[in-house]
């Protein structure tokens, strides 16, 4: 069903491909998926994403969905959220999950790393103030562990606290009594995850998706 549109938007796709680094084929695939999610509308709403059945089991689906509507992830230098996104924005969010190309220089690799970590950071920093406060952190951790079922809410909270304290400990060293840790900044975030080779892990295989057989088997 995307065929008729893709003819008209060929140029547009080329433009997107240049900007995002996706191949035309991948953009075509993602576009197909986008149209399927939106029921051929121009824009995607939260409800569209929330209605994906496979997401139901995901403990942090709220955060993920929010990430799609977060202006910070859309490469705009502003904060806040939008209600609906178009295909271009959808694609921009997806670029965070593009595998790293081979032969990157050290600097490029570092940038890529920061970019990917920034996405993760933004997911935690719900109020976009540049720090993950304990409240925010707890929220994510509780959600994260909620599906496990066996870990109670209290434990989750304690774990969040412990992790936060750990972050404070690693980033600040020993804290003075009258010092207080306001939350995880992005720099701290980079620091605690410095052994986490996100640049080689945060990627999704954007295969040729066949919308008809979606979720019935691996296409291609």
């Amino acid at each position, binding site marked *: 069903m995307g065929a008729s549109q893709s003819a008209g938007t060929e140029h547009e796709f080329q433009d997107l491909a240049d900007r995002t680094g996706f191949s035309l084929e991948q953009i075509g695939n993602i576009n197909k998926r986008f149209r399927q999610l939106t029921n051929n509308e121009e824009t995607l709403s939260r409800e569209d*994403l929330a209605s*994906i059945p*496979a*997401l139901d*089991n*995901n*403990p942090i*689906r709220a*955060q*993920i969905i929010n990430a799609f509507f977060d202006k910070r992830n859309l490469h705009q230098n502003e904060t806040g959220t939008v209600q609906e996104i178009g295909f271009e924005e959808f694609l921009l969010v*997806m670029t965070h*999950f593009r*595998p*790293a190309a*081979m032969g990157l220089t050290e600097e490029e690799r570092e940038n890529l790393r920061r970019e990917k970590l920034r996405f*993760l950071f933004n*997911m935690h920093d719900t*109020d976009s103030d540049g720090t993950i406060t304990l*409240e925010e952190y707890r929220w*994510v*951790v509780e959600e*994260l*562990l909620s599906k*496990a079922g*066996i*870990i*109670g809410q*209290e*434990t989750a909270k*304690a*774990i*969040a*606290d*412990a*992790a*936060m*304290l*750990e972050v404070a400990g*690693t980033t600040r060293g020993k*804290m003075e*009594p*009258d*010092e*207080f*840790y306001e*939350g995880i900044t992005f720099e701290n975030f980079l620091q*605690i995850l410095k*052994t*986490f*080779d*996100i640049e080689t892990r*945060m990627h*999704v*295989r*954007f*295969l040729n*998706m066949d919308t008809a057989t979606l*979720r019935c088997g*691996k*296409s291609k």
Partner: protein
Amino acid sequence: MPAMWHSTFILVMVLLAISRPSLASQARTEESQGTGNATEHTITTLPIVIWKWEEIHFPYLVALWVLVSWLCKLVFQQNPCLTSVIPESGLLICIGWVLGGIIYGADKVQTFRLQPFTFFFYLLPQIVLDAGYSMPNKLFFGNLGAILVYAVIGTCWNAATLGLALWGCWLGGAMGDIDTGLLQLLLFGSLIAAVDPVAVIAVFEEVHVNEVLYILVFGESLLNDGVTVVLFNVFNAFVSLGGAQIDAVEIIKGIISFFVVAVGGSLVGVVFALLITLLTRCTKNIQIIEPGFIFVLGYLSYLTAEMLSLSAILSCTFCGVCCQKYINANMDERSVSTVRYTMKVFANGSETIIFVFLGISAIDPSIWVWNTAFILLTLLFIFVFRFIGVFLLTWILNQYRLVPLDFIDQVVMGYGGLRGAVAYGLVLLLDENTYKEKKLMVSTTFIVVYFTVMLQGITMKPLVTWLKVKRAAVAERTLAEKLQNRTFDHMLVAIEDISGQIGDNYMRDKWNNFEEKWLYWLLMTPFARKSCDPIFNIFHKLNIKDATSYVKEGERRGSLAFVRNESKADVDFNKKFDADFSEMMPYIMTENMGPDHVPVSSILRDSVPSVCLDMHEQDLKMRESEDFDAHHVLQQHLYKGRKQHRHRYSQKHLEVSKDEHEVQEIFQRTMRSRLESFKSAKMGVAPPKISKHLKKDQPQKMPNGKSTENSKSHAYGDEDVEFSEGDSASGCEAAGSSFPMRAYRGAGIVNPAFMAEMDTMDPMPPMQQIPSWLAEAEVDSSTVAPSQRAQLRLPWTPSNLRRLAPLRLSTHSNDSFLLADSPATQEGISEPPPPPPPQDGQGRGTHK
């Protein structure tokens, strides 16, 4: 360096001294055996001491050799500068040569050599089991595809190319006159094609390459055994059949047998893994031999596969890989570390023995046949074809890999193709009548093994450094990192869902769900299900670490100050509790889960804050006035209390699993008794139960103003009466449950040590887990008692106990979280909370 050699030399002398008599006796053994029996029958008088060497010489020699091998290792490990240059495996081979030379010089014949049977049945299994057991599962299964490609296709490629190339050279006449043929050379190729797990582990463990690279080489070395065994058997059969009888049917049979051997072996391993796991579900009562089951069943999996002529190494590997997660969760923590260490002892021990004997076995002129062309060509082909194979396969794999393996990784992979004892064991199995050139093959195998283990092993480290291979990040995984990891995984799954694909993450997620839903239920004990969560595990470990550091800190200070400030007492108890009562906790936990459940303990819980308050006040104002002896208090109360509790526990030990109510009853009764003694101590109503610790309560009461006079007049003369919890438990049970505890709030007593213990016993109020920076805010939000009560009813989990006070690491936080509790607990006496100490001010900004 000279000093080092000196010590080595001395050791060799010592070894010689140890082994000489045994060797000499060994030589004599055969002769004396016949006469030995005769003399025994003809004793004329009662011998006081009998020389019974003949009877025990075999186990004695085995034990001596084990000792000698390990001593060699010890010597090398004493000289880190040596092992940093030459890998340990190479050094062990060298010492093997020296020892072999000594033996040969003494006996003029090589008495000892590594027998294939010993190697395959006594030395190899534990190495493989250990490799499987300590395999990083996620990494292994994540790269399973690539590993299989290298292990199966790569090994076939190595075997075929080596065999064919040697055959070509042989036809070309490069090797002179040797009696062989295509099939024999192919057989030789197949036995020497496989990368050896023992050698790979030995070398790569010292070179910390990045984990993907490591798992590829390591996984390949383990899994290619299936291929090796099949190729070896098939070609062995072909050689026996003779070239003429080999037709398409036989070849197809060979291919089928490959699948049967490999898949069958793995299946046997999985079945045994299931058995082990199910067994560990019910070994709670025999924890002493619990670890033994792992070893016996692991070994049986190896033997069973061997019996069915399936791949034993695959079986043992998969057994270890599949069961590790579940048995680690099921078994007691101590058993887990026992298994871990014993596994390492066995694996490391037999690895050492293998290398030493690889050296010793070579010092025997009777096995050496030298054919320069054959040996050198084999070396060359092995080296070259390994590289070609790796490059070729990686190129194919890179077409599909999202993160391609770069060139440097490929070089290291190619260079890491070490051959080892498996090849040696296989080549010795050859039948000398069929294989006229067996000796040449054995010699070549030796040379290949030495070349790869020694030369490649030595140069591996410099090469890795020179190529700047990405090293493994040797960092302890932190809790925050684990959490991020988890978030991250879920995020990838979600993105796959959103973009509508069924990718790796999707499959992994499905598997995880399946595992959680069914496998956990089937394979894990209820308690293990909780603790198997890696995040929870780290959390738990952190707690233990904190606890240990408190104790250390406390002991360092050596005064009671730490009892209050660092809570040595309760932490200490906490640890005990953790170890001894871990079984009990889940039951208590589930009991308290019920929303309508208002057990006595929930009343008891309320008493804790008041305790905390008092401790806190004491900390704040009376810190300087304390002068009693910490150890005495600890001894008198904590230790007793603990012992008491344990006693009860062990009494009920068998019933624990039967009746959870009873468990809870025990818990509550203990709590009550504690509370009772606490209460009586405060009121001075039960002098016989008061003991010395009350003395220190006096100063504490003063800040409260209300009970100063009181406390002075109490019957503290009874200090010397032994504190007896048992009595109080039986005598005051009813009072404990019926007496409105709130009346005591803020009455201000309290033995910190005692309280601390109580603190531990009691479910921690959630507020105690509030970080210091939030303490102030929490105070605001929870000044109303009912809300706190409500919080108290939240499920009490063992972690609450464990994570006693996440913040006590920082020295001030103890105070602040105690402070946090104060308003809620003080409302009973309508005293406004004392102004928070300055450090709490830090929390204000944090809390939004």
